[in-house]
């Protein structure tokens, strides 16, 4: 029973990491790529580590796994934020089909996306 649970956790984790790497290839622009990579990879690694913790079921292993997951969840959003901000300031363009870009008022990014909302104007 526990074996099946470990298998499910590890498989789900591996699938999420796979989806993250396919997403890097398929997504249209830098920001959506970053958006997918950070979360799917974090969740995937979390699942695999949880599987490892259940498999060994020792106090020391579980403590280490909890610490790794905690620091992963704390640090990866900060990294994503800094990478995204740097990319925007250095002028990497958004996808042409992006709907709205309200950050244009702050930094001049030269992409031709309206900075007012789509549905907002219709009302």
């Amino acid at each position, binding site marked *: 029973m526990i074996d099946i649970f470990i298998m499910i956790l590890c498989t789900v984790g591996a699938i999420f990491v796979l*989806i993250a790497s396919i997403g890097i290839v398929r997504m*249209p622009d830098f920001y959506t790529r970053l958006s997918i990579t950070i979360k799917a990879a974090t969740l995937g690694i979390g699942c695999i580590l949880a599987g490892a913790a259940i498999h060994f079921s020792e106090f020391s292993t579980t403590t280490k796994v909890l610490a790794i997951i905690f620091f992963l969840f704390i640090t990866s959003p900060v990294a994503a934020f800094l990478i*995204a901000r740097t990319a925007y300031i250095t002028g990497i363009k958004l*996808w042409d089909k*992006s709907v709205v870009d309200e950050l244009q008022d702050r930094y001049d990014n030269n992409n031709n996306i309206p900075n007012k909302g789509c549905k907002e104007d219709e009302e």
Partner: protein
Amino acid sequence: MLKYFLLNLLLAFVWVALTGQLNYSNFIFGSVAGFFILWMLTRRSNMAEKEYFYRVPKILVFILYFLYDMMEANLRVAIDVMTPNFHTTPGIIKYQLDAKTDFEITMLTNIIALTPGTMVMDIADDKSYVYIHTMYLKDKKKFVKNMKERTETKLLEILR
């Protein structure tokens, strides 16, 4: 608040010491038992004293709710990556913050970043706005309202 948390921790350690087994399930059982014992002991005190006993269930509910949200959104992104057509309508939105202190803003930013599809791009100089990049933008007002009600107010309820 802090007093009851420390008492709860102390009771958990007393339970672990008395049973003599240091593992997670025993520790969790000790804290749950200590929580209920403390709750019964403080049943006659005023609301400010009892705040701890309402906050802990709220935190647990929030964590479960966040995990559910994260799984659901991850599945949506996964379906979008695996199927041939894109359904993404990305955009960057200005979002007004209710959170005031640095700690609250950091927690909110982390939670926004871990929900797939959304990501914080920049924070205004006076910390009153954040700029959120989102992958599924249908209606701007609906998105802002959703973010405010489902994430921010719940988080601030816990932190304040």
